[in-house]
């Protein structure tokens, strides 16, 4: 077993154990990110009117896919990092020969694993509320059975979404080195994230010019892109993954520059 795999296994295992330590909390966290299910209720009614590009069943499938992608791409690193800096708990992590970012990433992975059973139960609940999403209706006949490649690309897209969100939030979190309290600054990107990622509105319903503009930002790739792959298999794959790659590189460079500058500014307070 290589050193990297051993580190990965040890940290994922331990952080999974940490996340399942408080069982009720997992359920509450999973339920708290169920906005897509509420939006599903709204948009299924809208889709039934026939005034939108997606019909009711497509809307239901899309928002169930959004719910799944959201569950596996939730990021809260800014809150954790801020606390670690302000309380001085970052110091022990800085003394170890591994970048603390890996710990934060693997905490998220551990949390995703702990959520999985709840996510499956909630997904089953969605299908029971709107069974046509599973076996289709007159407008969209046939079962919702994503092909293997759809699933694979959706999973890859989902983890790209996680990486994008993580890098963006972690870069904002670096502000803690200078300003200490930075979690509020994340609200600056939360609104664009909410409206441009496809959580509230399926992006197909935007005016074409707005859709074209939005597709150059990182937000659609945080939800809409992988959700659309999973829901109907029709998505701009090449452009999508190319834009993701560019944003990941840009955010990674920004993050590393801020990290290095921040460490020079770090006062290891409280420690």
């Amino acid at each position: 077993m290589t050193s990297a795999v051993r580190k990965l296994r040890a940290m994922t295992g331990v952080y999974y154990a940490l996340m399942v330590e408080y069982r009720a909390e997992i359920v509450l966290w999973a339920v708290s990110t169920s906005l897509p299910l509420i939006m599903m209720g709204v948009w299924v009614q809208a889709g039934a009117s026939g005034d939108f590009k997606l019909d009711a069943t497509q809307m239901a499938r899309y928002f169930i896919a959004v719910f799944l992608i959201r569950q596996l791409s939730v990021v809260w690193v800014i809150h954790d990092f801020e606390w670690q800096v302000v309380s001085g708990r970052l110091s022990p992590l800085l003394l170890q020969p591994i970048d603390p970012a890996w710990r934060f990433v693997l905490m998220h992975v551990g949390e995703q694993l702990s959520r999985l059973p709840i996510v499956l139960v909630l997904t089953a609940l969605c299908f029971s509320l709107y069974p046509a999403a599973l076996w289709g209706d007159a407008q969209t006949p046939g079962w919702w059975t994503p092909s293997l490649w759809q699933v694979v690309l959706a999973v890859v897209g989902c983890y790209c979404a996680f990486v994008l969100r993580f890098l963006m939030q972690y870069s904002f979190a670096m502000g803690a080195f200078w300003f200490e309290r930075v979690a509020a600054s994340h609200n600056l990107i939360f609104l664009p994230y909410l409206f441009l990622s496809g959580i509230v509105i399926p992006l197909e319903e935007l005016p074409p010019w707005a859709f074209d503009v939005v597709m150059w930002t990182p937000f659609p790739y945080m939800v809409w892109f992988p959700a659309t792959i999973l829901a109907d298999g029709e998505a701009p794959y090449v452009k999508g993954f190319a834009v993701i790659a560019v944003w990941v590189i840009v955010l990674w460079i920004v993050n590393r520059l801020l990290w290095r500058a921040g460490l020079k500014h770090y006062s290891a307070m409280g420690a």
Partner: protein
Amino acid sequence: MPVVVCDQLGKTYRVANKPPGLGGTLRHFVRRRYKDVEAVKDISFTIEPGEIVGFLGPNGAGKTTTLKMLTGLIHPSAGRCDVLGHTPFGRDRDFLRRITLVMGQKQQLIWDLPAMDSLRINAAVYDVPDRDAKARIDELAGLLDLDDELTRPVRKLSLGERMKCELVAALLHHPKVLFLDEPTLGLDVNAQTAVRRFLCEYNQKQGAAILLTSHYMADITALCDRVILIHQGALMYDGSLDGIIQRFAPFREVKVEFDSDVTESALRPYGEVESLDGRVARLLVRRDDLTQRIARLFNEQQVADLTVADPPIEDVIGKLFAEGAA
């Protein structure tokens, strides 16, 4: 060759200065005022392999700031430091693998899980093979009298048990230089003794250098032959424990028991009266005058018993810091 080198090391912090009251709060909100605080000034010392050095100073003297610079947590504002041939704030992996910092008031263990889980991560992070990690954990746990404490959630442990687990986590990778900041803080007497014994054994077995800060003089006297005194960021003394008394305590303590009660005024000609309780008195007498004063005491008073000793090191250092003498 020294494992730790500090050469005119200095650190200046910029801190916000908020005036009190509502007016001060509003002014602070509109326009922040800052002042520069020199936490460490021109400190120079070296530490050799295997040496245990006590690092003493009152609160706010700059001890922890110095340790933070030596471990690479913060960048110095002036001077140079070198630990095991590395510049600490470069945070080279090879450097981080060979040092540790234990902070009595901070923890690295995951609060909600047993210490064993944190040790598992540390073993992987420091590339200690599973078999070696198990052997080292058993050995360190044995030295610290730890048993099932390692498998209980950290939040359920007492302060002493937690500190011992912290030491196991901090030493699992067998560091060559240990920076210990108040490792016995808040521990009971038995736990303090266990930690001291453990550090002594670790030092002898691994040949590790230790720089130790503590407010408990018992830690220093039990472990350190050499001490560094720091006050208001500046170095006051670097040498042996005994040397402090020679240099900073020109008095010796004379404890006298008389045949009958005596008054303080009757004792003043012989020295500074530290305490008087009926027939028993403690006097401070200048070293260069000691023989003559004791001879006079025997001639002029009814002495039943007399002992001469150096004043307690705690008193000397306490007085030194209180006076801020250089």
